[in-house]
Every structure is written in structure tokens, then in C-alpha cells.
């Protein structure tokens, strides 16, 4: 586990944004940061923020292990950060909703109650060990690689997030830690676009659900009238738009890792994954009922780009075309195990 993931603001570093861009950057940083306090001139992040570690949950689990992991992150992290705990496939066992996670070469089922318990342990460790000025958005993740991707499962996942937030409030933790849902929604996974849309619709409009998926097979050069350009397995840009922004709960945290390099129209460097999402963002700006997608942060992986590069590519893409987004708030890297 690396210790290099302290959040750093770099005011005044990098190119000077436009007046409009600065305003948007300021607004984005404040709004996405939520609990950030301090001088507002700190919020224009022109260089990659230090990253957090997110986790694919796997193997032997215990509340102690989650608490220990939360403590480690709390000690190492400063500012306002995002962590995703990905519990794997949506699953239903009997009457119990939950997820199946990777367990020593197989899979094992966890109910939403068990997941909530582990997430709460993580939060407890983070709270106990983190500085009072550190704030955490703790996103509880699943994916769309399952036959149980449904509105009912989305509703249960949202209810679980609600129970975690109630628990955090009852302990006095919610001043520093809040929970959200998350889904690794990818065209390449087994659930169809309509099933995945149903999950997101079922999640409702009470809490945030971060989409930390990829835009597999989507165009990285263009967008077109609804339903947009095709992506893998019959998905269209409009499906990604819904799952990243048009749905009330949806915010985008795209996976950006090693794919083909691009030189953007303004000369900046990016890659295919980042620009696939940028085309979805622009699709929303031109055709979407809710406007341009706000890409809240980048997610790197262990075997891909360095988190700073991942973030930089996304940042470059969302600011290479009009309308520019401005700031990208978060950078995280997802790893296997706690």
C-alpha cells in the first residue's frame, strides 16, 4: 500500500484559466468537495490531486480488516477525498439482496446488511485515525456484470446507503464522512443497457451513485443525435449519458487506464478511455435533457496508468472541447484487496 496519496492543492500552478473557466472550476471544486473550507483561491486544481486508494473487496473479510484499512487511509489522507469500496456483482440469495465478491478463486455472497457493517467499520477506522479536517465520501460499489442487475437491486442498494448514512449520523461521524452508492457500469459486462438503466433508476434520487465504469467501444472522436454513437454490445452514448448524469443519482467517476494515446485538438495529450467519456459529456451538452455530464474524477487501476496521468488525461479531455468543464475534483486508484 502506498503512502503517497495526500490531497494537495496547487494554487497558481499551471495555465491561467479563463474567467468563465475559473468560475466553473471554483464552483466545481467547492460543490464537489462539499465540506471543503478555506480560502477559495485554493480550488483551481491545475495539476493532478494526490490520489486515494479504492478497493475491489476480496477474500477473507472481517470488520477489523475494514477498520484497519479505514484507519490507514485516515492517517494518510488530507482534505476532501473519495474512496470506492467495490463489493462485486449484484446478487440475490433467497430473499436477501447483496453482492458476490471474489473469494479465493471463487465467489462468495454478502448481504447488504453485511456490506453495510463492513463499510461502517471502514468509516469508524477512518474517523478514529483521520484528522478533523479530513472529509470522506465513501462510495459503496457494485457492478453490472450479473443477471441480478435490476431496479429492485438498485433500490436495495440505495436503502443500504441510507442505512449507512443513518449509522454515520447516529455516531456523529457524518460531519466528516458520508456514504454514497457506486456502480462499475460497463457496456462489456453481462447486463444489458436497459437492465443497467433500471438499476440506476431503482437507486432513486435520495443519494449519489457514482458510475466508475468505462465507455467500452464508444466513439472517442464524435457524438451524434440521440441515441448517440454506438458502443459495445448495443449500448449507445445515450445509455452512458443516463448512467453518468441524466439519472438523478448519477455522477461520473470514469475509469481511465492504459489505452491508446491521443493528441487532442489543442495539442494536449489524452487517451481513448478519457476521450470516450468526453464524447459522452459533449453528447449531454448538445442533446441531453440535463446538460453536460460533470466528470467528477478519474479512477486508475493497478495495471494501468499512474493515477496522476489518468487524472491528467481526463482533465485534458474535458477542457479540450467547448464547453469546457474546468476542474476535475478527484483522483483515485482501485486495487485488489483492502
Amino acid at each position: 500500500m502506498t503512502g503517497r496519496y495526500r490531497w494537495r492543492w496547487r494554487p497558481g500552478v499551471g495555465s491561467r484559466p479563463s474567467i468563465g473557466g475559473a468560475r466553473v472550476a471554483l464552483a466545481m471544486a467547492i460543490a464537489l468537495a462539499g465540506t471543503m473550507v478555506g480560502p477559495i483561491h485554493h480550488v483551481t486544481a491545475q495539476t493532478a490531486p494526490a490520489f486515494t486508494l479504492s478497493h475491489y473487496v476480496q477474500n477473507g473479510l472481517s470488520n477489523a480488516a475494514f477498520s484497519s484499512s479505514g484507519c490507514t487511509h485516515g492517517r494518510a489522507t488530507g482534505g476532501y477525498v473519495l474512496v470506492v469500496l467495490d463489493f462485486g456483482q449484484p446478487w440475490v440469495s433467497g430473499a436477501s439482496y447483496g453482492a458476490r465478491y471474489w473469494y479465493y478463486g471463487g465467489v462468495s455472497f454478502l448481504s447488504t446488511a453485511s456490506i453495510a457493517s463492513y463499510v461502517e467499520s471502514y468509516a469508524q477506522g477512518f474517523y478514529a485515525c483521520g484528522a478533523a479536517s479530513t472529509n470522506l465520501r465513501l462510495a459503496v460499489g457494485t457492478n453490472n456484470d450479473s443477471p441480478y442487475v435490476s431496479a429492485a437491486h438498485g433500490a436495495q442498494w440505495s436503502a443500504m446507503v441510507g442505512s449507512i448514512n443513518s449509522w454515520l449520523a447516529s455516531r456523529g461521524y457524518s460531519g466528516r464522512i458520508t456514504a454514497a452508492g457506486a456502480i462499475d457500469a460497463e457496456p462489456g459486462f453481462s447486463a444489458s443497457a436497459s437492465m443497467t438503466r433500471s438499476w440506476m433508476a431503482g437507486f432513486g434520487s435520495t443519494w449519489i451513485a457514482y458510475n466508475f465504469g468505462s465507455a467500452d467501444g464508444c466513439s472517442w472522436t464524435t457524438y451524434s443525435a440521440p441515441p448517440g454513437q454506438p458502443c459495445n454490445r448495443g449500448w449507445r452514448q445515450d445509455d452512458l449519458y443516463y448512467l453518468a448524469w441524466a439519472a438523478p443519482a448519477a455522477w461520473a467517476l470514469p475509469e481511465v487506464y492504459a489505452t491508446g494515446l491521443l493528441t487532442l485538438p489543442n495539442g494536449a495529450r489524452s487517451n481513448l478511455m478519457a476521450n470516450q467519456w468526453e464524447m459522452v459529456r459533449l453528447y449531454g451538452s448538445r442533446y441531453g435533457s440535463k446538460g453536460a455530464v460533470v466528470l467528477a474524477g478519474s479512477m486508475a487501476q493497478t495495471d494501468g496508468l499512474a493515477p496522476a496521468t489518468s487524472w491528467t488525461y481526463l482533465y485534458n479531455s474535458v477542457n479540450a472541447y467547448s464547453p469546457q468543464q474546468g476542474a476535475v475534483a478527484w483522483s483515485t486508484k482501485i486495487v485488489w484487496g483492502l
Partner: protein
Amino acid sequence: MSLRNVLTTNVARVGLATAAGLALGWSILAVPTVGRQATVPLPAEKQAILDRYADLVAQGAAHAARIGSTNPVDAVPPAAPMVPLPGVAVGIGRLNADADTVGPPGIPGQFTNSWYVIGPPVTAIVWAGVSSDDPSQGIIVVSLWNDPQATSLQSTQVIKAPRQSGTLRIESATDYVLKLRAADGSKLVFDVRKSGFGR
């Protein structure tokens, strides 16, 4: 507790500042900008969700201020290092059902089932299946980790069956010795400790 008292705590101030920050942030975003879309209002339902979070943060900060250091959870020391799931037998191998088997990441092949043992001294997972390149070539994959949670990978080996007898499946295990059956019906024995086929 009066509002004035609440405001005397740093925690509460942070919470209230947060709520104000959220409102300020999105109100700035909604202001017309130069060289951009004329207005960028946050969709109302998203604003409502952010408002809910802001309320939660403010209430949490106020609650933390009320309970202060009397919160017993705050006194709990950091948890112990990672341990296996309670109830998981350390050192005793288990077979994963075929339907529950997930192949080893990054290894090309189709995998029938898997067997695992949780350390110490090591955690091992053994997969049985067939090579992607040659459907007649059965393979075993052995991954070893240094910790019970299998986060610190020591090694991964791909071992070919001695004969091209098709897909392998683990039928049973005794201690660290696995009995396998190949697609052509032949039986094989694999010793995990030796990472090799035997008799």
C-alpha cells in the same frame, strides 16, 4: 444546546461551512459564464441530493459537537491487522464449486473449478482448466500469497498437464494433494507443495 454553543465548536463550524460551501459552489456554477454555455444550472434533482448531503454533514457536525469526546467509538483504538473471515479454517483446503469459480486474472484459459487454502504460511489458489491456445492442453494455475487476504502476491505458475488430455477438473483434495480428471477420462494427481504432477 443553543445555536450559539454549537457554533463555538470547530466541528460544527466545519459542518456549517460545508453546507454554505455547497450552496455557494453550485450557485456560482449557475451564474452565466463567458466562453461557455450561457448558464449551467445543476439539475434540480441533483441539487436536492446535494442539499441532503449538506444537511447530513451539518447535522453530523452538530451531533459530534454535542456528544464530543464522550462518544465511545472514538476511544476505540485502531483495529488489529487484517485477519481472515471468522469461521474460515486456516490451513484446510476447500474446493470452489464449478459455477462459483472465477479464473485467475490475466491468465488466458478456461477454468473449470478451483481449490484454495488460507495460510499461514502461505495462501494458495489452484485453478484447473485448459489453455486458450490449445483446447487439448489441460493446465493448472497456482498462485501463492504471503498473507491470508491474498493481497501480497508471491508467485503465479502455469503448469501444463503431462499429456494433452483436454480440460482438467479438480475432483477431490486430501491435504495438499489434488486428484483431477481430464476431459478424456484420465486421472491425474497434482501436489500443490511441489507444484507438479505426480502419480
